[in-house]
């Protein structure tokens, strides 16, 4: 009897504590927001309150958390970092935006930013940037800042930028006596090398293409060849452009010659798996993939990277993109959120994160060199060297919709059952319908 009563009391206690904890949290922040004046320099004013920061990469969280926590302690703001994997991140953010409980500060992506900006869910930063001493938008590549620019207003501060490089297995090159890839490589050199690196028994392939990887794969070839995925005002698909089709035919020739693992293998295994298992000698990879690369002993021992091969006419191109730091428009603590954003967009934080290799090339020009040197085992400068040849990530209002369709069609293309041009034409047609629906 006594024991039961004790248990009941205990449960009541726990319940009431958790209840007050919830209300305490929610109640505290608006009060702070009311009394704080706009603060221009985070170092001087203590904003107080708490900030929730959302991102999707656990590898980067390891470096970002200490940085923002240190900043928070200096400024009397409690910063909590929440990681949601990319696959669920946007579902989470959509739900929290619909429910009115968005994280205060978050990572934004070119695929999604327009929907959030158009619905005024993320903060318009124009006036705050204008009055800021820390954030200088001229230090970022214009293409990347423009990603977060909507109807003349800035909704995000560039966090990083990513380019592609060609990774190759040195041991496999040594085995057949091939010279390592360098800036002289073209499509022809790439294919020749892939042929020589492929073993007859199917235990080793020269190169890997995937249906999953547009940004990290066939999009690069399309733009190198002078084709395009979407036009500049984002109203028209370029999939049936002869140059685009030609690039896809080049991609498909790897499958036809059997110098790339077949459609089923590339559907079941990611590029990094195929490289790290020694199945494939060469592959493109984005600069955000350093986490998995650095942590694999076989990879570290055998691999290095070089700039992407150029098209037969010498044209260089890489898809490049960059994440943005954005703040929720409805945050109860806008000044603290901006102060954090301002810090993260400033030179100090950008350089610090660039030095931690896995946090990607800094958007801020001051951090580029630091990133190129951030892991001496690899020639990471190749990524930085590709920046001038960057092509902005093809996107529209509802990028995901045509992206899904494109991926399914390319997956079908890899089966080699239908002509490349026919599938390209279908993609163009469906994509145009989807783009028209976006603006309806």
């Amino acid at each position, binding site marked *: 009897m006594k024991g039961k009563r004790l248990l009941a009391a205990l449960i009541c206690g726990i319940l009431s504590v958790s209840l007050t904890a919830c209300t305490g949290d929610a109640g505290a922040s608006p009060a702070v927001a009311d009394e704080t004046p706009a603060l221009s320099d985070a170092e001087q004013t203590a904003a107080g309150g708490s900030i929730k920061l959302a991102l999707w990469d656990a590898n980067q969280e390891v470096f970002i958390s200490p940085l923002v926590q240190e900043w928070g302690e200096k400024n009397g703001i409690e910063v909590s970092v929440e990681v949601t994997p990319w696959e669920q991140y*946007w*579902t989470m953010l*959509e739900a929290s*935006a*619909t429910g009115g409980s968005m994280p205060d500060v978050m990572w934004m992506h070119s695929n999604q930013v327009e*929907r959030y900006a*158009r*619905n005024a*869910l993320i903060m318009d930063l124009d006036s705050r940037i204008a009055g800021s001493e820390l954030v200088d938008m001229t230090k970022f590549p214009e293409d990347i800042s423009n990603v977060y620019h909507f109807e003349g207003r800035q909704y995000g501060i560039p966090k990083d930028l990513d380019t592609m490089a060609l990774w190759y297995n040195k041991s496999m090159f040594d085995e057949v006596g091939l010279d390592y890839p360098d800036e002289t490589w073209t499509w022809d050199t790439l294919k020749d090398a892939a042929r020589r690196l492929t073993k007859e028994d199917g235990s080793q392939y020269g190169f890997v293409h*995937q*249906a*999953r990887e547009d940004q990290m794969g066939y999009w690069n070839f399309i733009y190198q060849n002078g084709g395009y995925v979407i036009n500049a005002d984002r109203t028209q698909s370029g999939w049936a452009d002869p140059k685009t089709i030609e690039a896809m035919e080049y991609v498909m020739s790897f499958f036809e010659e059997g110098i790339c*693992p077949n*459609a*089923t*293998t*590339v*559907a*079941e*295994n990611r590029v990094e798996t195929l490289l790290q*298992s020694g*199945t494939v000698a060469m592959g493109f990879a984005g600069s955000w993939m350093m986490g998995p690369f650095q942590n694999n002993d076989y990879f570290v021992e055998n691999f290095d990277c070089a700039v992407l091969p150029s098209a037969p006419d010498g044209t260089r191109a890489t898809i490049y993109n960059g994440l943005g730091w954005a703040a929720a428009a409805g945050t109860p603590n806008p000044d603290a959120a901006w102060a954090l954003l301002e810090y993260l967009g400033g030179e100090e934080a950008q350089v610090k994160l660039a030095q931690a290799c896995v946090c990607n090339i800094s958007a801020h020009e001051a951090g580029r060199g630091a990133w190129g040197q951030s892991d001496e085992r690899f020639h990471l400068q190749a990524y930085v060297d590709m920046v001038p040849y960057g092509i902005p990530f093809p996107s529209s209002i*509802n990028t*995901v*919709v045509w992206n*899904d369709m494109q*991926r*399914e069609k*390319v*997956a*079908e293309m*890899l*089966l080699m059952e239908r002509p490349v041009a026919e599938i390209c034409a279908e993609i163009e047609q469906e994509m145009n319908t989807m783009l028209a629906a976006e603006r309806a």
Partner: protein
Amino acid sequence: MADTNKRSELRWGWLFVAPTVIGLFVLNIGPIAQTIYKTFFKTGDFGRGNIFVGLENYARMFADKSVWQALANTLIYTVVEVPVSVAIALVLAVLLNRKIRGRTVYRTIYFTPMVAAPAAIALVWRWLYNTDFGLINKLLSGIGLGPVSWISNPNITIFSIGVVGIWSCIGYNMVLFIAALQEIPRDYYEAADIDGAPGVVQFFKITVPLLSPNIYFVATTRTIAAMQVFDLIFMMVDKSSPALPRTQSLVYLFYKYTFEQYNQGYGSTIVVLLLVVILILTVIQQIIQKKWVHYN
């Protein structure tokens, strides 16, 4: 006096069923109504500014080949999963209802997949099935059979998924059958023994008829669950897999449109189709059961 008694009884009755009824309305019937309502709208961003479009979503769905393919996929999965898992579970239940050595151990082993998280199961099977690095193909190559693309060949992927579905629900079905088997009086079997009926005959003439209400129950609930298959496909088949169009289920499409493309209107329309199909299947099962289920 009697009248007030009855009234107070009635009040208590309502009070007792209230938690369930309220739960049913708030958690099931309400959302169903809301879902149907949504099918008439073009969803605006973040649930704002929905535009009434009448039957446009339905028109699009009826013209959408991938929806009908997904319905076919879902039905194939159900036809594979339900009968096979019920049959295996029934046989296992009969075997494990006897006094054999290690009976509890076997029962536990068969029930374990039910306890494991579906996502974890799917992830493990995904690697077992892997064409190049999977254990199954390694074993097959040991006996000289070529690699099979279990989860990327469009022709067989739905069956590979079905196998995992069967494997994970056998234990649960089996436990339901074992419980029912223990209700069957021993006298029937003793009488059959005296008449000299062999085991197989006893199984079909005694066990199956007396178990038929339970078989019907399991088959109906499993069908409903199988029609809603999602997690195994989502976890095991990559989005870029050439097998996806011929493997994705209706719920998979619902998820894709609702949560990945934020088109709740169209997603809801697909799930309403699923609801209707499940209703029809259940009604058919209910009509047929009159012919083979024995209640006594």
